[in-house]
């Protein structure tokens, strides 16, 4: 019996080893992986990072933000001007064709904008588009976008969050059809979609003269592999060429092996501690400014960055990501000083500290590190580690006022995408400071850049003075890819396959 098993095993092994396909540049296909099942490829009906990444390959916006200079360059539009505070006129490029052959003109822009702003169409993240009132065709290659009020970040939003769809095709197939067979003008065409599981992109040879540039790699093959260990196994066995969001400890090991390129880049996501200064959830210690300041002095944020986040993460001083427009950096700092924290607590009437619930929804080790620091100065915490949606729901009701949260700003490089969201009396605003709100309002509705900066600066300085938030650190992502791949990641956490090439 034994020999039979032995021969059987060898035969099986031989059969299995034949025909194994390895990813490499020979077949001009870059294999990569998403960690999360993407809802749909229709950009407006999903809210995932993966969807944004796909959208940048398949569609174009009217304008494009240069990653290096931060300047806006025409993409589908060749030029634009503000007619008045709420009207932006675009001249469109001529001769651009969608992947299905449909010609691009003003009708496509008008249709897309008017479709996504219509509340009856229920786009998933209305806030991305509902600053627009409507779009209007002036002639075949001229279009005006009307905003609801002065909206200074319009170009930033148009560059990042408004993909232009082909009007005839979208009218025919709708969101479901766009999710199964996406059609755009972008550097890559979608060859196949297996919803949530598998996406194949092919280089679009007729791509227009866009600031994005033509794609170099012929095919991009993306599979969803939820487990990071499995992703690494695929990388080792040659099944895929590139992964990202690799945890820092594993990235360090991979780097030491010298078999792959490990590239670390910061992201726009920041972590922060929020405190119930307004007493929305009832009377609590954080209504006293000294207690909030004590929290700031109690936590060694640099140590958390050095030991846990690593990479290009940095301590952030202000309630926004440093490179965002209007993100004032010169604000009151809270260096690590546990003695001072204790003094402040005593001053506030808590010489022996107090015990309170602490909420978090991601990066449990970071939350636990913060809790340990807080305990050292006398603030004892009970961790409530929740699903994000559950935490948001509690905050809507004014609960969960003390916790560690994060915000990625949708990769929008403007303070209005973070500070204004959290400090204008919304249901995640536990500061409820009238003055801060007014400054933010002024910044959000003025087109003049200097006036905006001035107002945001005032708001951010007060947020820091009052210690409404303790901003913690910026996040980072590790990208790991084979030595054959030429790629430099950008700080907005968007993987641009069209900028990659083979070495």
């Amino acid at each position, binding site marked *: 019996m034994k020999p039979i098993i032995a021969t059987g095993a060898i035969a099986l092994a031989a059969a*299995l080893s034949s025909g194994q396909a390895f990813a490499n540049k020979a077949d001009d296909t870059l294999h990569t992986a998403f960690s999360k099942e993407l809802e749909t490829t229709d950009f407006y009906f999903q809210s*995932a990072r993966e969807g944004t990444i796909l959208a940048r390959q398949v569609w174009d916006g009217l304008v494009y933000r240069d990653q290096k200079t931060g300047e806006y360059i025409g993409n589908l539009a060749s030029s634009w001007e503000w007619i008045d505070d709420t009207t932006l006129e675009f001249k469109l490029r001529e001769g651009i064709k969608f992947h299905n052959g449909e010609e691009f003109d003003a009708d496509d822009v008008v249709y897309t904008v008017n479709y996504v702003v219509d509340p009856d169409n229920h786009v998933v*993240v209305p806030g991305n588009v509902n600053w627009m009132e409507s779009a209007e065709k002036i002639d075949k290659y001229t279009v005006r976008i009307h905003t609801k009020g002065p909206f200074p970040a319009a170009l930033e939003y148009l560059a990042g969050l408004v993909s232009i769809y082909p009007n005839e095709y979208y009218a025919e197939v709708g969101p479901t059809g766009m999710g199964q067979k996406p059609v755009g003008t972008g550097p890559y065409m979608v060859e196949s979609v297996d919803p949530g599981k598998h996406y194949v992109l092919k280089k679009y040879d007729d791509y227009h003269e866009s600031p994005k540039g033509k794609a170099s790699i012929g095919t991009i093959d993306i599979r969803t*592999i939820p487990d990071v260990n499995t992703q690494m196994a695929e990388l080792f066995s040659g099944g895929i060429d590139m992964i990202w969001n690799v945890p820092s400890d594993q990235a360090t090991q991979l780097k030491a092996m010298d078999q792959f390129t490990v590239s670390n880049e910061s992201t726009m996501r920041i972590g922060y501690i929020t405190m119930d200064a307004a007493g929305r959830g009832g009377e609590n210690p954080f209504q006293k400014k000294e207690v909030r300041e004590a929290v700031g002095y109690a936590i060694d944020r640099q140590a958390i960055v050095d030991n846990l986040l690593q990479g290009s993460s940095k301590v952030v001083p202000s309630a926004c990501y440093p490179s965002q427009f209007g993100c004032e950096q010169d604000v009151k700092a809270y260096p690590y000083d546990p003695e001072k924290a204790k003094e402040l607590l005593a001053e506030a009437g808590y010489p022996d500290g107090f015990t309170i619930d602490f909420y978090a929804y991601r990066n449990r080790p970071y939350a636990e590190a913060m809790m340990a620091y807080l305990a050292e100065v006398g603030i004892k915490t009970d961790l409530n580690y929740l699903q994000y*949606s559950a935490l948001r729901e509690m905050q809507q009701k004014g609960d969960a006022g003390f916790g560690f949260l994060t915000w990625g700003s949708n990769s929008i490089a403007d303070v209005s995408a973070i500070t204004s969201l959290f400090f204008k009396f919304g249901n995640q605003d536990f500061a409820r400071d009238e003055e801060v709100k007014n400054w933010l309002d002024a910044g959000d509705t003025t087109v003049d850049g200097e006036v905006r900066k001035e107002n945001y600066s005032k708001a951010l300085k007060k947020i820091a003075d009052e210690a409404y938030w303790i901003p913690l650190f910026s996040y980072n992502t590790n990208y790991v890819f084979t030595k054959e791949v030429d790629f430099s990641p950008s700080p907005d956490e968007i993987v641009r396959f069209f900028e990659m090439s083979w070495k």
Partner: protein
Amino acid sequence: MLAFALKRLGLAVLVTFTVSAISFSLLHLSGDPATAIAGENATEADIAAINEQYGFDRPFAEQYAEWLWNAVQGDFGQSYYFKLPVAELIADRLSVTMTLGVCAISFALLTAVPLGVLAAIRPNSLIDRIALFISVAGQAMPSFWFGLIMIVVFSIKFRLLPPSGSETWRHFIMPTIVLGYYAMPAIMRLTRAGMLEVLNADYVRTARAKGAGAGRVLFKHALRNAIVPVVSLSAVQMGFMLGGSIVVESIFALHGAGYLAWESIGRHDLPTVQALILIFSCFYILFTLLSDLANAWLDPRIRVG
């Protein structure tokens, strides 16, 4: 027998109904579906719009009644998350899970039953010890760890098998072994215990005494009786494998129904979760019924009783 079967069926329908009602309430209690659908980047206005669109602000009973009414008519609605018909989505994912489940339970039975029989024939022998070791190891190893070890050995070291995906039969080998191995110890131990018991029974001695061959005694007289509880156990294990292979499906990126159910809970994709729970509970009921029938065939006493 017919009255008995009908009664069981009626009970099964009630169980299914109760399960769906409980799961519906639990999902609603566990968090705000609108916040989950809107995603991390959503503002409050976004969430309010979704609440209105999906009607989450309506009374809970009304929402459940509406779902139930549609489900009875075969309409499971649209997945909140994938924006696809739930039936279409599940059909796709279920085929992977079914393939994996059938392969895994077959693997478990084909290894566990012969090992159990061998172990029972020679209790406390070397083969019994080996069988015991295998089953203890199977019980003790978490499947995510075993799965990763398999990947390290067969995908990375020897490059024999692809680590993830579900495109070809080769993708199913490692998941089958990992999932099957998890079910194996219980089946093997039960087979061994049952065999030990019946091999010492009077009728087996009688069968031997009347001169029946060793094989005939072993398989016709002994195993047929010893296997009855194993069949029931396998039915439960099969149900578990269809709904509970989440870890294995996740590690090998198989995108089956178990993983879909797990992820859908986190996404508050109520129509998908509800439909999956209904299907899983139907499976459990179906397999229990099948095992009852199989046992009745194996053991005439059950048929009469």
